């Protein structure tokens, strides 16, 4: 009780002391009785002098400087907000006590610009802390806005901006710049990854110093060559001989001049660099500063090097790396300003792609036609209809790791990639032997098996987006997938028809024993095909035999082969078993068919390839049962029901799971005679574990129907040396135990959907029917396009987007239009 008295005394001390201090920011905090009372009743028994658990001592607050006091109050605020204190076994404050104190603390800390909770809530992981029911209740009538901001460019936008310095695409501009390293990296994680909370730091500066040096060298290289200062063949790095074709006449003029440049020439050069790098004109003060820098540098280093220093300095402007969105004009009655037209043009363009605005959008901004919501709607619809301007890989930043998929609006597809997180499959390394010996990890020159799986998930998403009907539910429940599929159906049909024709004509000939003669005798049957051509020369017999053996594996068995023969150069598509589909032949099967030692083929039954896709696959339901998603949410050697469950809780149910306490060493114990479910349930059933795991396990365990490669299963192999019961295809076969895929669903907002689920398919069906799940999609789309977490004041924007989706038959395009014409998008405060 002593400590309680101490706290009471402390409060009085602060109050009295505050009068003496003039500076608001440095005034000691005055705790109102509600807050000090709460601390006395629920906290000080464990957090006072002599018993300061976790090194939190509330009793000594008065002895702290204001910085220490604010730090301590921030810690109290977080505990109250996240409801992590008092501990479960201790007396708890009522909801009213908690919220009254939390609100006071937040207001006070905000008033002093010191609320760390506010900063934390800006982070992607804290998006769901905004009350879902309130957001969609309609009771919030605040006018939506986005805080005025600098938003760091994404890695993809940076790549475009850097290239834009050397002119528009085409005209000899390379796809990537040899000497430029992207200073930005997005986190490797499921969920929206590109937020406005990142800050330019020393790391980016160091990378930019090198980038700017290289870029400025290139910007004057053409002129210096013209000036006879150097020759391409004398460049120190002969791999880097590119001379930009687009460089400014203003730079030329200075480099080529034999005397110091005039003020007008310098001004022109500064203007040209601003146009190329910052894509705007400099104001008078900037012009003066940069002109002086140029003149001074020229005086030291001569025209070329002096000019280059100015180019370099502009490239180092932080503005080059930020998107600026501050709004302009008079504030409305809510204190909001609409985006300036130029800002708006960039915001729109970067919402849909990675490039800056096209000519029409820029023109609209310049001519006063980007000032109203209708203006934005017109431009959004126009840009969505334009299938070429933004067309690019979904994520060029992942290029090389994942088979490249070009789409018309990469940012839209990228949302689904990030939301579902399936590209993370490329980050989970597997033991190929466990993957039937055919799983290939990403490596140099190959995307490996996960690359193909990610590509196929991309294509599935794209096919659903093209239909643009019930997009969310279809993504969750479709049983139709795209697998392999490297040719359009009409081409595929033609290939199969030609192959069948050849097989039909030649299968009765002695092609196995007299291939040369068969080729000569059947020239007509082998010729005239669009997609089948036997090479002339030494490889003719080999190719003929390979194809005939390949045909023999299929056509007489009534099975259609994949439309590319497995001996084709660079072929390594063999992952059909990860969908539980029959295998396709490995290249080696036909590799030696022309050699004397070839003894014929075994009678393997291969996959009957559907030329028309998407096609139905048994025991699959939507993206969450796609091998790419399942692999992405797995561990190196086993499944990960906890991560899968957490994903559903957070991404589909708009729920929250507390962070793993630092005292927890989250490991599932080894036991070679139990399933993973049994081991997980054993270790998480303890009281202190289940309070978090209850939010994840029941949602993730139904996916135990699939192994960590994404294969459907009813039995779980107990993979350990002591459980080997035989060998198949040279790989060990293990004892198994039946899979228990039961789980439970809650918080769907619909009692009829909540309850026990019998397996993953049951769970998915219920999720797809839940309005809350639909709204959770919308919330994540909001975060993706706004680059921030939603606030309660964004309620109207979210409800409008949800309404647009529903009223337009589940159109994601309608969601995009709604979001990009919302107040949250248009207004800054």
């Amino acid at each position: 009780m002593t400590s309680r008295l101490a706290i009471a005394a402390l409060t009085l001390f602060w109050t009295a002391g505050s009068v003496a201090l003039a500076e608001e920011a440095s005034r000691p905090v005055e705790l109102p009785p509600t807050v000090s009372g709460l601390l006395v009743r629920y906290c000080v028994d464990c957090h006072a002098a002599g018993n300061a658990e976790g090194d939190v001592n509330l009793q000594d607050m008065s002895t702290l400087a204001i910085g220490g006091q604010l730090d301590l109050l921030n810690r109290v605020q977080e505990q109250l907000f996240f409801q992590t204190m008092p501990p479960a076994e201790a007396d708890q404050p009522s909801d009213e006590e908690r919220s009254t104190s939390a609100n006071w603390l937040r207001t006070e800390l905000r008033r002093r610009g010191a609320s760390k909770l506010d900063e934390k809530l800006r982070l992607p992981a804290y998006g769901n802390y905004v009350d879902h029911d309130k957001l969609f209740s309609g009771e919030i009538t605040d006018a939506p806005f986005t805080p005025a901001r600098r938003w760091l460019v994404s890695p993809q936008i940076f790549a475009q901006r850097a290239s834009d310095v050397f002119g528009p695409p085409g005209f000899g501009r390379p796809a990537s710049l040899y000497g430029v390293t992207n200073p930005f990296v997005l986190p490797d994680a499921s969920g929206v990854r590109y937020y406005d909370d990142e800050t330019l730091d020393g790391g980016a500066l160091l990378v930019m110093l090198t980038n700017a040096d290289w870029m400025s060298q290139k910007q004057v290289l053409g002129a210096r060559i013209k000036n006879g200062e150097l020759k391409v063949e004398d460049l120190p790095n002969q791999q880097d001989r590119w001379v930009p074709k687009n460089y400014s006449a203003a730079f030329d003029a200075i480099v080529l001049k034999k005397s110091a440049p005039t003020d007008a020439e310098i001004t022109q050069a500064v203007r040209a660099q601003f146009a190329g790098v910052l894509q705007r004109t400099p104001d008078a003060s900037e012009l003066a500063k940069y002109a002086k820098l140029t003149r001074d540098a020229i005086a030291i280093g001569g025209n070329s090097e002096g000019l280059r220093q100015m180019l370099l300095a502009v490239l180092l402007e932080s503005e080059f790396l930020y998107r600026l969105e501050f709004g302009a004009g008079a504030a409305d009655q809510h204190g909001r300003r609409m985006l300036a037209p130029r800002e708006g043009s960039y915001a729109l363009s970067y919402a849909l792609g990675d490039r800056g605005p096209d000519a029409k959008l820029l023109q609209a901004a310049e001519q006063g036609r980007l000032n109203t919501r209708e203006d934005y709607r017109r431009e959004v619809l126009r840009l969505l209809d334009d299938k070429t301007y933004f067309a690019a890989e979904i994520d060029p930043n992942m290029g090389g790791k994942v088979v490249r998929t070009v789409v018309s609006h990469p940012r839209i597809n990228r949302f689904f990639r990030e939301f579902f997180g399936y590209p993370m499959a490329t980050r989970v390394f597997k033991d190929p032997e466990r993957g039937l010996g055919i799983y290939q990890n990403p490596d140099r020159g190959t995307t490996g098996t996960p690359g193909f799986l990610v590509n196929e998930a991309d294509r599935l998403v794209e096919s659903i987006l093209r239909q643009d009907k019930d997009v969310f539910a279809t993504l969750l429940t479709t049983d139709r997938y795209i697998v392999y599929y490297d040719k359009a159906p009409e081409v595929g049909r033609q290939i199969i028809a030609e192959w069948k024709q050849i097989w039909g004509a030649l299968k009765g000939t002695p092609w196995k024993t007299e291939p040369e003669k068969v080729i000569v005798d059947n020239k007509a049957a082998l010729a005239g095909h669009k997609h089948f051509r036997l090479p002339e020369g030494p490889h003719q017999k080999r190719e003929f035999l390979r194809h005939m053996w390949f045909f023999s594996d299929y056509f007489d068995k009534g099975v259609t082969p994949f439309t590319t023969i497995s001996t084709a150069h660079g072929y390594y598509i063999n992952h059909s078993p990860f969908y539980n589909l029959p295998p396709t032949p490995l290249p080696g099967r036909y590799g030696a068919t022309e050699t004397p030692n070839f003894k014929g083929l075994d009678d393997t039954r291969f996959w009957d390839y559907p030329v028309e896709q998407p096609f139905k696959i048994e025991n699959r339901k939507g993206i969450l049962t796609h091998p790419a998603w399942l692999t992405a949410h797995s561990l190196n050697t086993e499944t990960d029901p906890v991560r899968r469950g957490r994903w559903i809780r957070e991404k589909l149910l708009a729920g929250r799971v507390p962070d793993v306490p630092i005292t927890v060493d989250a490991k599932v114990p080894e036991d070679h005679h139990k399933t993973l479910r049994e081991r997980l349930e054993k270790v998480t059933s303890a009281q202190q574990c289940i309070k978090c795991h209850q939010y994840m396990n029941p949602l993730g365990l139904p996916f135990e129907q699939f192994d960590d490669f994404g294969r459907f299963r009813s039995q779980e192999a107990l993979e350990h040396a002591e459980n080997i019961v035989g060998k198949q295809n040279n790989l060990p076969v293990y004892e198994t135990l039946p899979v228990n895929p039961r789980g439970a669903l809650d918080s769907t907002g619909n009692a009829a959907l909540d309850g026990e689920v019998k397996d993953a398919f049951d769970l998915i069906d219920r999720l797809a029917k839940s309005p809350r799940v639909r709204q959770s999609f919308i919330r994540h789309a909001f975060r993706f396009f706004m680059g921030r977490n939603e606030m309660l004041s964004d309620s109207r924007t979210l409800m409008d987007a949800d309404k647009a989706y529903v009223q337009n038959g589940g159109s994601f395009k309608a969601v995009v239009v709604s979001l990009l014409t919302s107040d949250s998008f248009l207004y800054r405060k």
Partner: protein
Amino acid sequence: MQHRRDFFTNAFLALGGLSLPGFLPRLSAAQTAPLAGGATPMRFIFMHRGNGLFPKVCVPPTLGAAEQEKEKRNDAFEVDLDKHRLPAWMEPLEAHKKDLTIIQGLSGKMCTVGHHSWCSSLGVFKANERPSSIKWATVDFELARLFPSPMEHIELACFPTDGGNARGSLDGIAKGFSARGPQQPNYAFGSPKIAVDEIFKSVAADKTGQVQYQLQRKVLEFVAGHETELARRLAGIEQRKVGNYAGAIDDIRERNRKIDLMADTVRRHVPKLDSKYLAEKMTTLDRQMGHAEVLLASLISGLTNVVSFTVDELGHHYSGIPGIEGENVNMHDVGHGKVIGDIEAVEIRRRTELHHMKVMEKIASRLKSVPEGKGTMFDNTMIFYFPNSGETHHAQGTEFPFIVLSGSNSKLQLGSRYIRLPYWGKEGHKTLGNFYTTILNAYGNPIEHYGDPDVALDKFIRDQRGPIRRFLG
């Protein structure tokens, strides 16, 4: 002999100029602070070479029958080196035998191996030529951050000029084999001359160098002023978004100022390179020795505490090999066993490796001649020599032999030993990740495990994380 104590304090705070990340520090709080209590820093030299290093050539030839049998079976064992002769190609290290450890049996199957490995062997992940494959900072950079220095880290290389990993020039500055962080390749100096020009440019004697230095200072001053002015007009988060950047530029300027203050010291250590190390047509062997001079000067002057040195790479065309001095030897051919100038490939390997040992010996001897504290600079140094792509030309990554010289203040308990660790898949087997974790843990980075796991090893060893405890003492 030059005593270093006088300029140690400043040495942690200085920096070169505006230009290459290869010698620009990461601007972290840790870096701005000198080591606690003014302690002497450790230095780390990573010398790696391409084309693999055969484990069998690293075995002392005087092993007894029982030990030879264990060696043949790849069973774990160890012997004191003072009771054994070193393999002939390691003889240059004879004088340093008491500081020498030969470690065999570390695997790196989680790395890209085979012809090229990029940042794999220093980063313990599968890397390739694309920066996007770089997962995190390589171990040398992690160590550099534990022992801050003005330039943080310096990388030197005998670049490959063909094969799948070619650089545009032997003599330029190009992407190296270390990484500063995720997706951030480091840059390396290809020739001793360019390394000296860049590393020691703050004390450049020639006019062009001085002008460049002056211009770089000017631009930094301008940009810092501009961004600081912008930040001053902002508040809260927006202020931080620009203020951090402005602050980072100011950090560089401040360090430039301090490096200027230590100009006399730096000037004293500018390597006076023999003309053969500056020649346009320098042999590979001379290039390696020239790089060693730069490496020593950088360490002794206090400009850095960590140097990575790509002694060669598969795509490097070797010249100056004794007996075939006139040949431009394609190391890929050597990897495939080609006889060149009547010399067997194995012998060509031996001659190049012998030279590597001479380079290593030179570095160790020179550091032993520089007094530091109560001993010499070598006491506070570890030198690692290892193949960057495993056990042979087309390696599987089952073995990465390490030849280590460590000074008496090393925190790793290695001793003058030949140590064969349990082979891949056997109980107690250790990976490159375990070895680097050990080094990092020993010097203050508590990381649980550095590097990717070897997923194929999982079925033999369920928990492959953590340090090699016996090396931690």
